[in-house]
């Protein structure tokens, strides 16, 4: 469904991603692991169109995403959850949801469905999004993502700063999404337990390249990953 081939990308004259290639099948969850600064966020930003890929090809459902504006890409069913500045802090919770929902019909029904996953949000609908705690904000982001029933979710550190109980909630919700709606996901994570708990496969990045990949279910996977991360 998502096919990334030999992609090179970066900021100004700084190259961050070098020859990244991988594929994602429909309904599959791929975890992108690695330390800070290796290019995980850059990868997601390149896919969603905020950064222009200098080389290589990105295709989604058979069509190329290169050169498209982010809103075109988003409207093809890709939902992006950035790591930073992911909300409009001065807008209320419900207005944040509205912005993502756009001009689709039946906001109420979609909203109910998304809020069922995170019931605490029901009481916070008119609260300014910037006043929510870090963990609550992340959960709002997941709800916002579910709102538009995406085919592909790009999640960047969605558990950062989140309490353990909330982390498992998010994991449950994403699993359900994948099982019921067949949503594929590209999860960038530092939280190994969370990532390995929901992903089918993983890739591990170092200095802009993929150095290791495999299925999360395989027995040596966890050990191998920890070994690579500790190097």
């Amino acid at each position, binding site marked *: 469904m998502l096919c990334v081939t030999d992609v090179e990308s970066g900021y100004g004259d700084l190259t961050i991603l070098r020859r990244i290639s991988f594929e994602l099948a429909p309904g599959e969850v791929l975890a992108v692991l690695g330390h800070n600064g290796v290019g995980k966020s850059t990868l997601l930003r390149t896919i*969603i169109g*905020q950064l222009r890929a200098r080389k290589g090809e990105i295709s989604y459902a058979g069509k190329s995403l290169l050169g498209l504006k*982010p*809103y075109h890409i988003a409207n093809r069913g890709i939902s992006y959850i950035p790591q930073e*500045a992911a909300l*409009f802090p001065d*807008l209320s919770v419900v207005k944040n949801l*509205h912005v993502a929902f756009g001009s689709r019909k039946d906001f109420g029904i979609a909203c109910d469905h998304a809020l069922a996953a995170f019931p605490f949000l029901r009481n916070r609908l008119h609260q300014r999004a910037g006043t929510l705690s870090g963990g609550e904000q992340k959960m709002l982001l997941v709800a916002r993502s579910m709102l538009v029933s995406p085919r592909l979710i790009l999640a960047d550190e969605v558990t950062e700063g989140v309490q353990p109980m909330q982390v498992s909630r998010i994991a449950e919700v994403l699993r359900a999404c994948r099982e019921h709606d067949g949503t594929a996901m590209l999860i960038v994570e530092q939280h190994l337990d969370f990532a390995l708990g929901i992903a089918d496969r993983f890739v591990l990045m170092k200095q802009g390249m993929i150095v290791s990949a495999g299925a999360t279910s395989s027995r040596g996977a966890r050990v191998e990953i920890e070994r690579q991360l500790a190097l």
Partner: protein
Amino acid sequence: MVLGILNVLSAVSLLFIAAVGLAVIFGVMGVVNLAHGEFIMLGAYASVIVVKLGLPVSVSLIVAPLAVGMIALLLEPIFFRYLYGRVMESILATWGLSIVLRQAAQLIFGAGYQSVPYPTDATITVLTTQISFYRVLAIFLALVIGLGVLWIEKRTNLGTTARAVMSNAGLASTLGVNIGRIYAGTLVFGAALAGLAGAFLAPLTSAYPSMGLSFLTNSFFAVLVGGLGSLPGLAFASGMLGSTQQIVAIFIDPVWGSVALVIVALILVRWRGTA
């Protein structure tokens, strides 16, 4: 006394009406439109044309925003689109646009003043003094426009989307918001407001090619003092600047009134900057 207060309120309202189109464009898109005064001027000339066609002058209050909005729509893809996010270029390029529009107006309509009749000559009598009803109408129009834009901003999805774009356009784009369309729409809306202002002001000042200039600096001062993206701020700024100008104009002289407006604006911005 009552006359004085109403005159002040009316001056404040006129400033607000002139500046609100600029505030919308500047607030949402960050585009500095130095041709804003010329949009007002075009609105005023739309009134002139409406009258020349034999239609009642109040029709211009509908025709002018439509006409100026249309002109902005035509200019968006060939001109404004290249200015988003480029401050120095947009200052200079829109200044160039204003030169072109001024000269074009002069060529088409001539350099002289073209008067436009008032939609109503009615006066109201308040405590034995007579005031032009039209000036009082300005206060109502300012309230209607101000509350209307505020309503759109806070209560409609369009307004929410515009605020999102104003807050973080990149994020809005990744959420599927077509920011190009929002920008174009905002430009047209702001231009239409300017056109409306022009049509309303035409009977008061008459239409002449360089009329835009006198509204330009005052509108910008109001926006700069009021703070970017804040409609209540604009109302406050219009209040401070408009009343200063009018009070000094009444007690000393209209010219010193204009000077006072600039001085107060300078002080307010400087004071806010160091606070």
